[in-house]
């Protein structure tokens, strides 16, 4: 077992003016661990994700990341260039809307290859080969490599976005409602794919979702947020099968049985 966390989040708080986004959130994330953040709209889960992933400067608190050399670095004390490099190489960010994470008018192959070029790959043949291989892993036919994602279905776009993020071999992936807006059958395929990739690659991930079934399937541990605070936190199946807090009980009891 690896005895150092990959990420240390300490008392992260974000105010929008006087309004609370999220407040006093602390946790560690270990290598290979998937953490789900659940809660209803407006509970602060996306704010928290953005504050951790350096998309949004927190009002207070620290986020430390263990770099590949083993040293912890405070993300908000890094230079802008270094942070960007980290995000392009060691991290992935899967947006709910694939259009936010893809370039819609360049080819699928170029979408995947772009991140490789960003880390210094220059050989066209190698990049194309790697891109083809990744399209295969996310179950997109190789003959679609030159098509633009705007011609893809929603599920395909989302799978392409995942390939684009994973091609550089990141250690940490953030996902914001990765299955939101997809048909149920498409969701199942995507979830299975993500689950397999996370296991095979040993990724750590933080997944924001309002869907408790997604949390159950993907995550080891979950945090329940309400009004900007973490109100319950524990092993995913413990929180779902034996919820302690009134709000968590309400969430769990609101799931429709099929």
């Amino acid at each position, binding site marked *: 077992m690896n005895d150092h966390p990959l990420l240390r989040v300490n008392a992260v708080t974000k105010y929008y003016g006087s309004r609370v986004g999220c407040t006093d959130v602390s946790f560690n994330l270990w290598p290979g661990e998937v953490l789900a953040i659940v809660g209803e709209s407006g509970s602060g889960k996306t704010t928290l994700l953005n504050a951790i992933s350096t998309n949004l400067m927190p009002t207070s608190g620290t986020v430390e990341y263990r770099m590949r050399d083993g040293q912890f670095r405070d993300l908000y004390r890094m230079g802008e260039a270094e942070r960007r490099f980290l995000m392009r190489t060691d991290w992935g960010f899967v947006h709910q809307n694939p259009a936010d994470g893809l370039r819609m008018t360049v080819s699928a192959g170029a979408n995947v290859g772009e991140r490789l070029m960003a880390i210094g790959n220059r050989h066209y043949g190698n990049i194309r080969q790697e891109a083809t291989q990744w399209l295969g892993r996310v179950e997109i036919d190789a003959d679609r490599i030159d098509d633009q994602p705007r011609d893809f279905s929603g599920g395909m776009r989302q799978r392409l976005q995942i390939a684009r993020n994973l091609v550089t071999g990141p250690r940490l992936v953030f996902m914001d409602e990765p299955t939101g807006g997809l048909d149920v059958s498409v969701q199942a*395929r995507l979830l299975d794919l993500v689950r397999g990739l996370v296991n095979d690659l040993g990724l750590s991930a933080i997944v924001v979702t309002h869907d408790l079934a997604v949390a159950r399937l993907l995550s080891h541990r979950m945090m329940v947020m309400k009004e900007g605070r973490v109100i319950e936190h*524990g*092993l995913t199946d*413990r929180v779902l*099968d*034996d919820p302690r807090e*009134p709000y968590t*009980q309400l969430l769990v009891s609101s799931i429709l049985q099929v």
Partner: protein
Amino acid sequence: MPTPLVVSEVSKSFTMHLRDGIQLPVVENVTFAVASGECAVLGGPSGIGKSSILKMLYGNYGVDAGQILITHDQLTVDIASADPRTVLALRRDVIGYVSQFLRTVPRVAAVDVVAEPLVARGVSHGEARARAVELLEKLNLPERLWSLPPATFSGGEQQRVNIARGFITNHPLLLLDEPTASLDAANRAVVVELIRAKKAAGVALLGIFHDNDVRAEIADRIIDVSGFRARKDAA
């Protein structure tokens, strides 16, 4: 040899916040131990808290009071207070659990559902699959089902996938929640044989079996859960 499982003064109740916070006491003062190579069976009528006890031991239910001490490799952990990461490590390496129902994952083939606990412990896919096939064969699951996801299987077929998944590893502690409930006589006999093999290998087993014949064949001892019944006035 240290006792792999010691349960000491464990209590559990549910607080139903959506029903004006009423307290549903489940069990109180649960105290017992299970030794290596022993199969202990939780006894008592339905609804008395037997499954809840197993779920607490697996870390699936929280514990209000008391300790659940799991000892493995000279290390003792109290699962009642362990952090999620420790519980997951214990599940991977120490505590196996066969539930009554299989929670199916979309699109994953039965053989891979069974192989998964071995893969999680670092066994290669090929070897894990070979072991999975061996077990599925032993449990008489038709070969044409091996490569299909179990979501559409019958109750008995799902149960056998579940049993194979639970028995594939050599976890030193195995929790069994009515593993024979929906099986025919031939397959019940297979499960009895598998349990005997686990006992012989020194595994500590704790189970719930409503089937008297199965229970008579494998139980070394009955732990009467009626004795741990929560007093009604606790509410």
